[in-house]
């Protein structure tokens, strides 16, 4: 019961603070899920994030896996509660905004807020790189794989999940 309340509290706060499509919440989620509550290890956190990038839909759906691991006796309940807490609060804001929207659209505030928040979000993405690196394999082969993905992502049109799958193939060969 206590864990459920913690899951609700952690993920609903992340939901409300999930500006920039939720790109900036990874470091805080790691602090909560790994350091504060010990629901998952750093390595599991990185692997769950990876699965979130691999499956269709929003990456933050990997909250379900953190909830699953946090409640080993009732994993489905943990997953459902974490996912609901991750998605419902921001959705309620979106729904509630519709009535205020007419007032907002005439003003330049929307563009000012989204452009003004962008640098902080980008800084948080850099911190996410360090967060994810803590649970990623640290070997020359792993670093070369990451570097190859950066190159292919920036220079080719290969889509993200396919790049992850290709990395997995490399992993079977070189990272066992």
């Amino acid at each position, binding site marked *: 019961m206590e864990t459920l309340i913690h899951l609700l509290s952690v993920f609903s706060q992340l939901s409300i603070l*999930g500006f920039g499509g939720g790109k900036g919440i990874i470091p805080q989620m790691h602090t909560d899920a790994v350091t504060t509550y010990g629901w998952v290890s750093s390595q599991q956190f990185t692997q769950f994030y990876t699965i979130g990038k691999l499956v269709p839909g*929003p990456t933050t759906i990997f909250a379900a896996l953190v909830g699953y691991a946090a409640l080993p006796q009732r994993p489905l309940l943990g997953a459902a509660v974490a996912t609901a807490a991750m998605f419902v609060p921001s959705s309620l804001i979106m729904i509630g905004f519709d009535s205020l929207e007419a007032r907002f659209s005439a003003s330049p505030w929307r563009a000012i807020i989204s452009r003004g928040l962008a640098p902080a979000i980008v800084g948080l993405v850099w911190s996410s790189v360090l967060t994810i690196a803590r649970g990623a394999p640290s070997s020359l082969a792993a670093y070369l794989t990451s570097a190859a*993905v950066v190159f292919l992502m920036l220079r080719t049109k290969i889509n993200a999940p396919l790049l992850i799958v290709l990395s*997995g193939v490399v992993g079977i060969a070189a990272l066992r």
Partner: protein
Amino acid sequence: MPAEARPSLGSIALTFATIAATSFGGGQKASIRRQVLARGWIDSDSFFEGLEIAQVLPGPNLLNLAIYCGQRVRGVPGAVAAFAGVSIPPFAIVLAAGVLYFKFASNPFVHGALRGCAAGALGLTFGNALELTWDERKSWLSVALVAATALAVSLLRMPLLPVLAIFGGAGILGEWLRVRKRSEA
């Protein structure tokens, strides 16, 4: 006349479920746009308005945009149908992945694959950070805020709320001053 100006809630849920279940690696916004325009649910101006709102408010862009479209055609029940459509298929898929993960993660081949995938995901996040930083390169204030935020979070372990309040707030203030200066000139 559009064929489907007042769609059923089931049809809203199913449309977004299909998009969410097949949205591998981006392109979702374009596919939502195609679908809702083709069905005559909303017009193009209204779509782009919704896209802007979806991006400025917290939450996944895909989810927010679907909610906006659902709400436009069928009010709050439409928004709820769109929410269910976007959330349920990825939830089911990620759960299936989770069950397999806990069953097989210790198998050496799966273990190797997961480690490789993690290295790949790290590369994607790094590449994303590079791209996003490149977009901010024209303003020194923005670049300084990117660096200051990353340092505050990774070195000083500053929590998310004060990070957004301080560095997000400074960015919004800077942007507001810039827009005001430009409109006075």
